[in-house]
């Protein structure tokens, strides 16, 4: 049995998450096996792609149930990018789809105007992250302005209760939620496994925690 199960619903770059964990010395596995998941100390829900497709695949493999049950156990759940978004109540991507509902809030598309009044919605690149609270893994997120995290998404979460927000970032001047924490759930919109050593510190902290 492994300490960390990376939920495999065939979306996103799971291999890099696994590499990052192994790099810091965590026993991890990419899996969709329900028993393996149940017995892990922590699960990571990564993901890149479209929300409705993600939910569809999770349901197909009964992983949605598995995650909800895991949540009951109060063991650590980490969401990354799309994985973070799925934890919420619903998303407006390609219609309206319900998420896992472990966190209250909605997922909406970026709809901002740039300097030339052109619509922009694809946030790709390195952004500064402003820390709102540091009571979890996020305590190791960079505090220096020039240490940034890597984002790649067009949709962002809008939590019902802003107290779960642990950091924010900006897209064309508009502030959005870049990470959240509520009890045993912690999630990041950016990719810690793609954010150089700054991102790796989050995984290091996870190792300590385990």
């Amino acid at each position, binding site marked *: 049995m492994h300490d960390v199960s990376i939920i495999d619903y065939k979306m996103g770059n799971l291999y890099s998450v696994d590499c990052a964990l192994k790099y810091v010395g965590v026993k991890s596995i990419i899996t969709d096996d329900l028993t393996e998941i149940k017995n892990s100390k922590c699960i990571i829900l990564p993901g890149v792609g479209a929300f409705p497709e993600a939910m569809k695949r999770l349901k197909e493999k009964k992983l949605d149930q598995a995650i909800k049950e895991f949540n009951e156990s109060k063991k650590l759940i980490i969401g990354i990018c799309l994985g973070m978004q799925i934890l919420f109540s619903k998303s407006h991507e390609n219609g309206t789809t319900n998420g896992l509902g472990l966190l209250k809030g909605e997922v909406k598309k970026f709809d901002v105007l740039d300097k030339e009044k052109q619509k922009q919605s694809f946030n790709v690149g*390195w952004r500064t992250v402003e820390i709102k609270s540091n009571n979890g893994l996020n305590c190791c997120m960079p505090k220096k302005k020039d240490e940034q995290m890597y984002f790649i998404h067009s949709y962002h979460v809008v939590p019902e209760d802003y107290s779960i927000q642990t950091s924010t970032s900006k897209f064309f001047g508009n502030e959005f939620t870049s990470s959240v924490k509520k009890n045993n759930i912690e999630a990041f919109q950016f990719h810690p496994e793609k954010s*150089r050593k700054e991102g790796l510190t989050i995984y290091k902290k996870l190792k300590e925690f385990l």
Partner: protein
Amino acid sequence: MNIRIIPKIDIKKFNLVKGVHLEGLRVLGDPKNFADQYYREGADELIYHDVVASLYQQNNISDLVKRTSKNIFLPMVVGGGIDGIEQVEKILKSGADRIFINSSAIDKPNLIDDIVKHFGSSTLVVSIEFVNIDGKFMCRKDFGREETDKNLIDWAKETLDRGAGELLLTSIDRDGTGSGYDLRASEKIAKYIKSPYILNGGISSLKDIGDILDNSHPSGLAIGSVLHYNNLDSLFSKMGEEGNIDFIKKKTNYKNFKKITIKQIKEFIENKISHA
């Protein structure tokens, strides 16, 4: 908005190769060594391009991508000869965050829609390699080998309409020459393309970068020769005797590309933007 500095690593089999005008496969070293170096220097992202994939009709770099993922924690865009969903999946599974397609998109534009449907817009970069023919920018496919009747702007717009997340726009005329990007092209791109795009080809000095930023707003700059030639890896013995290794054996300079580091580039850009 930050502009990402993205070393572009062209690959044939086990070697990093670098041509001029997308021609020539001069070996410069082990791609992983270069990637490690650029990671240390603060690169924002890496592009891996299997440059003979369209020639031999098979893509061969998943192993390199896997090895890179193990200790380089940077976003990676990987491409070269990709023309189907299965290939995309294989490369993403090896640790790439995004893939790029070029020739296959021109041959079957529906592939763009397909990939977007399966993997999302954010996973797809469309690469366009173009030549400047008296002010008209015409697309090429098959790594610069085949002409097409598509022009840069119309084709770029079409790929974005079909869902491509970002574009990689390469000036074939400038590739490998160190003579700066085609500024007529960047001007036109800035005027008509309103989605993120990475410029590639000929960028080799801070002045080149300044010129680009004066007339366009790329989301990223892909840089090849000037970085590679300044980081020549003489550990080629690991790779065996294959490929055009005559240059690296001689240990000579080429074109005297002025020394420039990723850090300098980033500082320059930051200064320029903050003074704008």
